[in-house]
């Protein structure tokens, strides 16, 4: 991969460049991005119309809101939480209980507003838990949130009247009490509802980063001590930020409740907490849109790739480690690194080196896949004796040849990739030097 030291200067140029005030061009650019995003979202169900694709898009929408809310803590507030799903789950429970009351005729609330109920419920809880957990950041915070998550999960089994025991709480979203002329029986209708809430939440979370609280969350993240000496109480800043993050996680939970019509205690456990953590980190925490990429990418991986290979968790783990070690800014960081070069119209200078690295990269990757799949097939598949088929090629996993091929692919690919990576580095250095000279 690309060595980091050479990247630093690029990162900074491409970094969070701030436009004070809105120029016309900037507004047009923003409107363009948002409009494109909306159009794609509207067109998606027309292109991919299977039920599975619908479920996946719905899950992506929920994950986007959840991941962005997580990044309000990690990326913007510097708070690494191992228990953010508490608010996702509790928001879900809040919403599903309200839905049950609607089903029982005890309450009349528009189905569309259920996520808000989840959000408010989660925000109240978030304020209380935020107050006690954000006195300190870093490791104490991480451990407290982990402890709170474990506590709630353990208590969920002891309090079946609220959490519904193992089976959770189920409701029926087909309530007839709706704002829009939909019944929300079909998942396509739910898709549009999730879409609306997603855009509202994304916009709200984006604007929040621009408010005094959002700015101070950054300041406290960077240097909580200094923040005290400009008049702010870091504990309060964190508590408010935490509450808001809980609110949006609760909205995601409410959307979950509508989409699946049931909520179980697994939603507030360690698993979704770490899932969202990995999504956000892989997407990239330094840029606002990073978690969106992560949510889309990882949800896709979890749902689609897991249908193709059962070793997906291993690939997921390998990818996570690679990202942490060589691309700590995530996918978004990888993209944004190229911004200054893009602006200087120098992409053509590095693309050839990328192409040169792509081929050995793919070879190496194929080697990893072959080896992992062989091992997986032998030790974990239903019938190890049956032929293994990788990308359409069938063979016996126990044979010697596939191993040899795998190791060969990995070795040769790895060696060539290392050489190619050097070329990429060289290309970067040259281009950056050129740009610097021109003073772009």
């Amino acid at each position: 991969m690309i060595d980091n030291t050479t990247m630093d200067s690029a990162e900074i140029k491409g970094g969070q460049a701030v436009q004070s005030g809105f120029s016309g061009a900037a507004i047009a650019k923003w409107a363009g991005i948002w409009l494109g995003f909306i159009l794609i979202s509207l067109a998606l169900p027309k292109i991919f119309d299977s039920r599975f694709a619908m479920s996946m898009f719905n899950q992506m929408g929920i994950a986007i809101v959840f991941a962005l809310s997580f990044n309000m803590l990690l990326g913007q507030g510097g708070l690494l939480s191992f228990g953010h799903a508490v608010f996702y789950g509790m928001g879900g429970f809040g919403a599903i209980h309200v839905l049950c009351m609607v089903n029982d005729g005890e309450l009349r609330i528009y189905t569309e507003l259920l996520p808000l109920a989840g959000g408010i419920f989660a925000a109240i809880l978030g304020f209380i838990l935020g107050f006690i957990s954000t006195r300190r950041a870093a490791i104490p915070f991480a451990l407290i949130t982990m402890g709170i998550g474990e506590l709630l999960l353990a208590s969920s089994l002891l309090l079946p009247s609220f959490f519904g025991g193992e089976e959770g709480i189920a409701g029926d979203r087909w309530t007839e009490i709706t704002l829009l002329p939909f019944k929300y029986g079909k998942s396509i209708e739910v898709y549009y509802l999730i879409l609306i809430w997603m855009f509202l939440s994304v916009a709200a979370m984006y604007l929040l980063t621009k408010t005094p609280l959002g700015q101070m969350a950054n300041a406290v993240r960077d240097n909580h001590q200094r923040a005290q000496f400009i008049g702010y109480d870091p504990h309060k800043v964190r508590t408010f930020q935490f509450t808001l993050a809980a609110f949006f996680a609760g909205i995601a939970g409410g959307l979950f409740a509508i989409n699946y019509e049931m909520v179980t205690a697994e939603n507030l456990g360690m698993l979704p907490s770490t899932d969202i953590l990995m999504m956000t980190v892989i997407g990239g925490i330094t840029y606002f849109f990073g978690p969106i990429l992560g949510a889309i990418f990882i949800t896709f991986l979890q749902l689609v790739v897991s249908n193709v290979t059962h070793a997906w968790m291993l690939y997921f783990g390998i990818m996570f480690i690679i990202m942490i070690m060589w691309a700590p800014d995530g996918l978004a960081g990888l993209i944004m690194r190229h911004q200054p070069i893009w602006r200087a119209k120098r992409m053509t200078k590095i693309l050839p080196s990328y192409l040169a690295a792509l081929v050995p990269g793919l070879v190496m990757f194929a080697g990893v896949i072959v080896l992992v799949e062989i091992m997986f097939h032998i030790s974990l598949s239903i019938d190890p004796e049956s032929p293994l088929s990788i990308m359409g090629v069938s063979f016996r996993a126990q044979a010697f040849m596939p191993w040899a091929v795998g190791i060969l692919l990995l070795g040769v690919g790895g060696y060539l990739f290392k050489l190619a990576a050097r070329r990429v580095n060289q290309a970067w250095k040259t281009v950056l030097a050129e740009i610097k000279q021109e003073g772009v």
Partner: protein
Amino acid sequence: MKTRTMMKTIALILAVLFLSAPAMAADTIKIAFIDPLTGPFANVGDMGLKHFIFAADRINANGGVLGGKQLEMVPFDSKVSPKESLIQLQRAIDQGIQYVIQGNGSAVTGALMEAIAKHNKRYPDQQLLLINHAAVTPAFTEEKCDFWHFRTDAHVTMKIKVIADYLTSRPDIKKIYLINQDYVFGHSVSAAAKEYLAKMRPDIEIVGDDFHPIGKIKDFSPYITKIQSSGAQGLITGNWGNDMTLLIKAGTSAGLDLEYYTFYAGGLGGPTAIGEAGIGKVYQVTEFNNALCIQYKNKEDEERILAFKEKYGEDIFYLKSKVTMDMLAMAMDKAGNAKPKDVAYALEGMEIDGYYGKTIMRAQDHQLLQPMFMSRLVKQGEGFAKYDMENTGMGWETVYKVDALDTAIDSPCDMKRP
């Protein structure tokens, strides 16, 4: 070549997304198997899948259903998560699948039951049928019973009733200790045990009724100490997985002199983890063990056990997988088509002569009634234990049989039929 193979993968991935029209061959009936295939419980899911594929293959080899149609098991990974299983259900529907078999995790069963009931109401022309082969929450065939759900495993209360029934043959046991996982399932085991012991063995004293956190206890020694001082002679537990093996291991290593009446000691990995210390002390209540065929001289079942071992190199654990598939196939033949609604009606009240006695799908609540057995862990070769389990040199010896009708428990189910 690389690009071609890449293209194939991409095509495969896209196919998953685009596939909305069922591309179904006319001569196969697909059955979705939604259970954990990755993650910590994948071993159990994989084993179940093998059993069902094995059972389907045998039906197919005998001419299939509906005059030659083949049954095909299509695996879907539930990851024991209700959310995941609901998404996988959508995938199954995309493929035109109308039958779902599932069993691991009551949460998943509950979610699938709810979702299928709603789906069948919202899309009356695309209905689905759920067969639950292992989730034992009584409510699924009691208060929560649903027309689209059938259960082919005895539920908690039924299993407890079998244990209590067995204890009537053991007047020497006077003191029983209950220890269970602290969640709905464990509580229902404890409640049922108290109820049925009071009914069938009122002289038994329940000397302890403990609940421990599920999946958290590494060392059960403290509980063992408590059980020890209570003077219990027998222990009833619904524990599964590590909670079961660790409990028994802690008990045997302390030399605890008592009998363990379990639901799942014979489950996958159980005999291996318990080890030889459990010989003569560990009991299980199941519909099947691999000594039955010797004891009841059933050649057909013995052949089935050997064929399974031959094919997968592993032991067979269930009879219910075979019963499930056989009944499903018979119901299709009886209905004359593969429409879930017709098949469901055909399944109601269906009776078959199983290997070890009459087996009935009760129409009232869709609960299967089948002969149940108490068996004890013994050394291989002892009594009827011709075959061992998991190459441990240990097998099972059946000590008590309860006929299908005697396992029945009245159900409050008031089924609404379409």
